[in-house]
């Protein structure tokens, strides 16, 4: 028995050594995988079935859109492959890389564009299948953001629209009941929060996601009120994180907790809890993105059993004197044609329909994104109350004058670590100055690829 066990141990050790050798051997060799070639087109004629991969809009909406398109184009059938947002990036990239039969692929503009550019066709290769004036039918800003996301100046997808953060939604019915005017400054927000705490102790005045990445969104929005584009300059012009404006921004954000506008208990909330609390009437203000604008719609609230009777929206309250409403925007809902597609012409037609045609009108009224389609107008009747209408207009106005791009300043690579630095200030672990210095050290550590780095 003893002998057998010893032999077993030898086998185990041999296996472990084999594993180590596998690592070492593999470490000694490296190389890369090249891009794919454009597939030949199917010219057989007859009905066409397009394979459509996406995560956005919600599946029910996409199915309605596909039904409408198929009705208008009887020879086209679209097979939908819908994924959850969190799973989509990895699934789509692996599928594209393996040359899977996909004709239309949704692209998360900021997160995916650079990585899929080897596997999708540049728009210029299929622009002949778009309306002649396609570029003038779409807003410049989301197109530019899509080009910037690729980092080579090329346009690989047509964005369905753009979105921005941070904006403030408020329970209009509750504020009416308490005689509170929607706050436009941090001081007014502080006063409103105190009044709500006194009158309705069970209600949290303001809620937002407490996770690290969202703290950077809050910080850059505050800084953007007085120093537009500073986050972009940190990314592209080498401005240090120790810049006095960033230190001041950290101090300003911290002061909103100290003054009572926000409560540190909010920092324990993970998505989607803030929306749940706001939707159930347990929070008066929700700080989120423009992608929550559907909360303004009474029909949407009814369909989703959201109890709040009336919702309004405003830009993030002005924190410092002289500040202007700020929001960070980014193109989203990119639609691209993979190199593996054998139905480029039909795919391009569907993309045109979704971005600048009737499709954009259909999904646009659901308030998921600000459509890139210039001629889009929200139909009458989508929003009913004065607060909702004013809120929608306020979001549109601030989105037209963004204070920075949502993508740069470290992007997703830096979001968690940078957000933890902000949390260290909010939780009293570090002073704004020390936190900024730590962020600068981390930013220049080499762990986070900066725009312009070699791929």
């Amino acid at each position, binding site marked *: *028995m003893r002998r057998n066990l*010893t032999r077993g*141990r030898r086998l*185990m050790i041999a296996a472990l050594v084999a*594993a180590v050798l596998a*690592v070492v051997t593999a470490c000694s060799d490296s190389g890369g995988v090249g891009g794919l070639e454009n597939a030949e087109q199917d010219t057989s004629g007859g009905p066409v079935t397009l394979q459509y991969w996406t995560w956005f809009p919600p599946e029910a909406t996409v199915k309605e859109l596909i039904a409408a398109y198929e009705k208008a184009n009887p020879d086209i059938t679209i097979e939908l492959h819908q994924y959850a947002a969190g799973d989509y990036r990895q699934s789509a990239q692996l599928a594209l*890389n393996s040359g899977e039969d996909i004709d239309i692929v949704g692209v998360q503009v900021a997160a995916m564009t650079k990585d899929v550019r080897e596997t999708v066709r540049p728009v210029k290769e299929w622009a002949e299948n778009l309306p002649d004036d396609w570029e003038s039918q779409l807003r410049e800003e989301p197109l530019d953001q899509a080009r910037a996301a690729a980092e080579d100046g090329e346009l690989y997808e047509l964005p369905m629209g753009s979105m921005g953060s941070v904006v403030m939604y408020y329970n209009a019915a509750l504020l009416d009941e308490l005689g509170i005017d929607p706050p436009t400054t941090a001081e007014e927000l502080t006063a409103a929060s105190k009044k709500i705490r006194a009158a309705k102790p069970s209600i949290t005045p303001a809620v937002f996601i407490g996770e690290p990445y969202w703290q950077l969104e809050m910080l850059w929005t505050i800084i953007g009120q007085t120093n537009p584009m500073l986050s972009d300059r940190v990314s592209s012009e080498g401005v240090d994180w120790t810049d006095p404006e960033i230190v001041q921004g950290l101090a300003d954000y911290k002061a909103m907790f100290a003054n009572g506008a926000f409560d540190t208990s909010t920092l324990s909330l993970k998505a989607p809890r803030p929306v749940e609390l706001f939707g159930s009437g347990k929070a008066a203000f929700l700080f989120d993105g423009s992608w929550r604008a559907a909360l303004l719609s009474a029909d949407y609230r009814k369909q989703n059993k959201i109890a709040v009777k009336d919702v309004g929206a405003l830009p993030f309250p002005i924190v410092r004197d002289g500040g202007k409403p700020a929001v960070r925007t980014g193109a989203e809902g990119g639609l691209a044609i993979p190199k593996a597609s054998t139905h480029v012409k039909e795919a391009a037609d569907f993309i045109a329909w979704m971005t600048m045609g009737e499709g954009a009108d259909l999904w646009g009224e659901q308030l998921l994104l600000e459509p890139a389609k210039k001629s889009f107008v929200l139909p009458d009747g989508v929003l009913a109350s004065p607060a909702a209408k004013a809120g929608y207009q306020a979001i549109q106005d601030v989105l037209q004058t963004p204070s920075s791009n949502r993508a740069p300043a470290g992007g997703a*690579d830096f979001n968690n670590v940078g957000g933890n630095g902000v949390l260290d200030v909010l*939780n009293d672990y570090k002073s704004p100055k020390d936190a900024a210095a730590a962020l600068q050290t981390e930013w220049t*550590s080499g762990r986070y690829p900066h725009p312009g780095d070699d791929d």
Partner: protein
Amino acid sequence: MAIGQNLGSPEGSATTGDTTRSAGLGHRPVPAGRAPRRRRPGGSHALPALAFLAPLLVFYATYFVYAIGFLGKASRQRIGLSFVNAVDVGWENFRLVVTDPNFQRALVNSLGYALFHIAVALTLGFLLAMMLSTGVRFRKTFYIVFLVPALIPMALFATVFGQMLETRDGAINGLLRNVGLGALTQDWLGATVPAYTAVAILLVYAIGLPIMYYTAGASAMDLSVIESAVLDGARTGQIFRLILFPLLKNVHKTVILSMLLGAFRGFDIIYFSTNSQPGGRTGIVGTYIYSSTVGVDKVGFAAAASVIVLLVALVISIIQLIVTRRSGSTYV
């Protein structure tokens, strides 16, 4: 109720060398004076053995060696999830990982959680398993209470627990307020000590696996030793401390190795409960690697971190093997 009343079947003594050769739990005792029959190595048994092993070896080569090789290759590249345009960066990824304070903290946390989990398993887990093995009333109910967490995905419990940790609307603070202990409410995810406490609570809750190990070990234990001790007037504490605990030393080793290596796989507990908060302080290597991969796209960097963690785990395993070999013990 006597200790040992229900501690498995008497199957020969584990300590009386004059009657048995092997004290290993779960192994058939061999009568003294009769040497175990030896088989010639190799010979006619080699081919059938290889045939039986072949499927496992193929599986091993495909899913283990290849995967680790792929990991090792990616660890020396700058590469994203698209796996195109890989750039050879030599050992740079390893340098960046090793010098990252967040990785260092994650590694220390992983080992710290493992040590805590081991301590809980060797004390609370051992005691609970022995008490349940005595035939205590409602033992099946207790087994369900303690073992269910080990049988259901930890991510589920951790997710619920994470919501319970909310400062204002969380169940834990709510309970404390309702029972008049409002002063004890904490900002569980905003301060280091409460956050580590929350993790500790979850680790204690995951005590089911050690209880299963100890229960299995106890079922193979020789009852006559306990009976002798009882007849000799040993008190319950003495039986636990001087007889049961030493008799189960091989189970302890299994538990220690299991908890130690489990700490490197305990991603779900941390990610779904504290999500490494506050400020990344409760993170472990699993959450570190995850945050470097999903939604971030630093696959090469994450691969380097994975290789380092793998090597640490291998070193721990080898040390454990050496220690086990020196002590001449067997596994349960």
